[in-house]
């Protein structure tokens, strides 16, 4: 933590602490009651044996020792990483592309509206619709694949399910993510582009040399939001494969839910949650370092 604080101690600042406290107080109270408190309680529970019906019993590090030896936990780490890699990789590249397309080639409000449509539909319904569309025998997608003479694909099979689920969620969140990036593109002042034009900088050089670096704070934001969300993937899997085939889609959230609710090992589930939390914190810190997310190249 001291590291982080040190990172931002650069400039000398006049203190606006008193008004700042006033402004952030409601949010701090909300954070305290609905996140920090249950979070701390969850951390405490991770050191106990607890099913929701009985009082927790302190057992020290036992849950953590068990988790580190549990092949299901390691499997969860592996398949969750697969999901995040596919989901974030594809989504970020496509969203960036889409944002640039929107920025440069269309003035239509409707196009943006249409692209946001999938986000209006709840996760569960989205998963059910795609489960149907992608069915081996009865789905349109395989009917089309068959029609053009290719082999039908079992989209929810052991080797394909994770990628399928990751792409279903790309479908739902692509417009949303693209809009956030698009919003970032609009903050880049026109004089930067004018200067690039005067310099005779080419398409690609402008994009990689000017646009992308200036987008860094937005990309940092988008990536933190999407990656932390992506690690917690639950609904789509619960509706489609429920963690199978075998263990191919048994991600952290599915495992945690199974342990907490189905087999009533709430303490153990809490320990796995804490492990997931530590991973997410580490990922966020790494992102911060790599993207230097708090700095903007634009001095205003």
């Amino acid at each position: 933590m001291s590291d982080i604080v040190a990172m931002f101690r650069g400039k000398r600042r006049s203190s606006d602490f008193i008004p700042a406290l006033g402004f952030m107080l409601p949010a701090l109270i909300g954070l305290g009651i609905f996140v920090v408190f249950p979070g701390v309680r969850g951390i405490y529970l991770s050191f106990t044996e607890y099913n929701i019906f009985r009082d927790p019993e302190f057992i020290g590090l036992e849950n953590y020792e068990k988790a580190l030896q549990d092949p299901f936990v390691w499997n969860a780490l592996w398949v969750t990483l697969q999901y995040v890699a596919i989901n974030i990789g594809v989504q970020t590249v496509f969203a960036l592309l889409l944002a640039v397309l929107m920025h440069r080639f269309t003035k239509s409000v409707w196009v943006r509206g249409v692209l946001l449509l999938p986000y209006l539909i709840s996760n569960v319904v989205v998963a059910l619709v795609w489960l149907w569309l992608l069915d081996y025998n009865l789905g349109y997608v395989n009917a089309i694949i068959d029609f053009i003479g290719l082999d039908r694909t079992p989209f929810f099979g052991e080797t394909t399910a994770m990628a399928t689920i990751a792409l279903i969620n790309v479908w739902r969140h692509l417009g949303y993510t693209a809009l956030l990036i698009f919003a970032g593109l609009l903050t880049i002042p026109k004089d930067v582009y004018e200067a690039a034009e005067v310099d005779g900088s080419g398409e690609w050089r402008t994009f990689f040399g000017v646009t992308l670096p200036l987008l860094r704070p937005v990309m940092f934001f988008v990536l933190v939001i999407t990656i932390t969300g992506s690690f917690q993937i639950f609904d789509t899997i619960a509706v489609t494969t429920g963690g199978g085939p075998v263990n191919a889609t048994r991600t952290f959230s599915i495992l945690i839910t199974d342990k907490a609710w189905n087999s009533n090992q709430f303490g153990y589930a809490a320990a796995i949650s804490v492990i997931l939390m530590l991973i997410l914190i580490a990922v966020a810190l790494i992102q911060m370092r790599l993207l230097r997310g708090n700095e903007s190249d634009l001095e205003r």
Partner: protein
Amino acid sequence: MTLLSRSKEAQETQEILGRRNSTLTRATAYVALGGFILATLFPFWFMLRTAFSTTRRLSADPLSVLPVDFTWGAFERVLGIATSEQSVAEGGSGQSLDFFQYFMNSVISTTGATVSQVIFSAAAAYAFGVLKWRGRDAIFFLFLFALTVPAIFLVLPNYLFIREIGLLNTLAGVMAPHMLMAPFAVFFLRQVFLGTNMSIVEAAVIDGANHLRIFFQIVLPMARSQVLTVFILQYITIWNDYLWPLYIGSSEETSKTLTVALGIFKSQTPQGNPDWAGLMAGALVAALPMLLLMVFLGRRIVGSIQDSAVK
């Protein structure tokens, strides 16, 4: 930086960039955009054709391009104007839906929660993005870390807390965790406020404006479109929230939200088949208010920004 509209500067930027477009790039770009739009809409066509089908006849012809046995039945079930017998006969659940009650519950709780959340999140973002004080980034990171707490961790203790303070089965209980902040909103608006033109703020300080005035009359208006962006995105998120209102509000008619009520169209047994037509009709009906919101607010923003002198 707006959701549905563009500022004057953005238009000019687009023109500068537009000058470089060759016909070929333009064509490729439109093809790509068209592809994205097509891929986006394809499942919606499937939802529409399913919603207008008769559930009991659907699986006979799973690859039908048009609705199977066209009927308004599914929408009648969703809107609660079909009788129990009628809906069971068409493959629906016998549950009756008091649609307008649930709809109003959703409108009230979502609107209340989102308005309050965006205001308080913006206030916090002002503290983190505009004001300067020691330790602000450390406190801000608390909000960032809030994103890393797995949701399943929070549902049960929060449910017990709501019960403790006597808000179980009330709309206030459904709204409560959303009302004071959302890490996403704080984070997003902070990023926005970091880019605030400080010379305007400083000028206001010299004029003797206090922070409340600066916040409400300068910073917020300048970031109006971003604030609306957050508002719309969070409105959609809260509207679609399912698990929390199911726990908190599903037992009373006065606190049951639309998404929870529509949950009855889901599968009734582990191996069972949902009322497909009803489910799709429900999903479309539930999305409609947000569609209207987007259209309505989208238009509003266009008007207000073009008149605005503040850059």
